[in-house]
């Protein structure tokens, strides 16, 4: 299912396998569910094709892990931003009610 979004199927699956490997090395089992959710988001917020030129070597390992986790954090960021909007809306409503009263 993951691979059916707007990126090549094999790339999403590779990313999932890649992350699983590193998570099992760096953090034994307990957060695996949360990480699975993160991985889904990682792939959902996915990837497109473009060449890259830079004077700094991004480091292959850094490059790969960044691609994988950035999507997960994008999901969290989206939730956080949404929650902030809700809070702002509620606070504004409460303030206007207080003013009226």
């Amino acid at each position: 299912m993951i691979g059916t979004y707007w990126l090549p199927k094999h790339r999403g699956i590779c990313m999932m396998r890649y992350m699983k490997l590193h998570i099992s090395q760096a953090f034994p089992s307990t957060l695996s569910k949360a990480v699975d959710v993160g991985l889904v988001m990682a792939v959902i917020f996915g990837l497109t094709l473009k060449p890259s030129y830079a004077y700094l070597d991004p480091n292959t390992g850094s490059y790969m892990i960044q691609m994988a986790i950035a999507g997960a954090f994008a999901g969290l960021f989206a939730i956080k931003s949404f929650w902030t909007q809700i809070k702002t809306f509620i606070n504004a409503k409460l303030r206007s009610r207080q003013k009226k009263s």
Partner: protein
Amino acid sequence: MSSALITPDTASFRDPSGHIFRLNHIIYRQVNLSYKQNYDLLLSSGLYQALIDARLLVAHSEVKLKEISDVAAYTIIKPDQLPIISYPYEWSFSQLQDAALATLQIQKIALDYGMGLKDASAYNIQFVDGRPTLIDTLSFEAYEQRPWVAYNQFCQHFLGPLALMSLVDVRLNRLLREYIDGVPLDLVARLLPGKARLKPSLLAHIFLHASSQLKHAKPQPGKKVDKTLTMSRRSLDGLIDSLHSGVSGLSFSIPKTEWADYYAANNNYLDKAMKAKHKMVFDYAKAMKPKVVWDLGGNTGQFSRLFSDKGITTVCWDIDPVAVEMNYQLVKKNNEKYLWPALQDFTNPSPALGWNHQERLSLSERGPVDVVLALALVHHMAIANNVPLEKVATFMHSLTKKGLVIEFIPKQDSQVQLLLSSRQDIFDTYTKEGFEAAFRPYFTINESKLIPGTKRWLYRMSTHR
């Protein structure tokens, strides 16, 4: 570039976008034609002005120099000149943390203007008017939907060292002195306690990151990593936000150290004597009309502020990370513009580091400065560290152009007695006469006075040149 008066900066050679040079003691930056589009975009997009308004980027003006005839040059800029350069291994926890947060803030603003940071070196940040400020105007490039090229550098320069300082020991910032391009993440991961994995940002940006780097450390023949993959803006925003949470979620609570409560609990001055010492120190230094003062072993900056409060650029060096931290908190609280708190161990001062020993300047290469204060310091060098007084004098001479305000504390003083209590007294020449004899070859002793209510002597000396 034409010769004679122009000195290329020895640390500015990695980025082909341009380089720094000095001409008649003024610092300039050459912007190369290869960076033209990005430089123009920085100005035309409004990003430059936004960062100047936020006081996050050093301001510059474009200049024409007849001495420059480099065909690769697009333009020459003259940035606001910095009175002092300090390095990340000389910063306290909060200084490094604020520098990290400033870097992320700059990246966020840059993205809003269609650009991004192409590097995230801690050495690109300097404290200007007490605030962390980006000094590399050529750090920006047009944003294309790619992963952050400086992600690894940010983690190695900022997040990793901060995590170690916060969760293991604040003195681990010294690792930045050993690892000039930031602390390797596999080392950070090995040194951090297990509980660090419970912080999602550290789990991701340190542990998983280090694991990924180890896996890809050796290129596998025939297997090419696809570096053409790109990343959405939303993902990059999430990454930056996560790094921000990771950095701001780390803290350092001030413990009691040998020096942090020195003035409150552990000195030989009554209020009246301290006031008298303040006046004597200020009058002695003022006689030399300093524009820049270095206060060696200045603790939390009590004497430094005699000068910085009057608009004199003052660096307060101290060995104790807690004292430097407390000093920096005061600088922030009072919006002080002229005081630079910085870490320095004078028995092992910052060396010249990096390529050809020239990328990061040693302490003495950043001097000499107009006036050096050495208050209640000599006994630590001479007795606690067995440095002969002649060598102390030579060292002080290398740091000051005009002169020295220096305190001599004799053996009869209780603080020196304390140093001698656990060891044999092998310091026969540690007397007032021995002290003066050691300094006379390098300085003229202009005046000296007994500090009221103490056994301590204060000297004003002018440098032999």
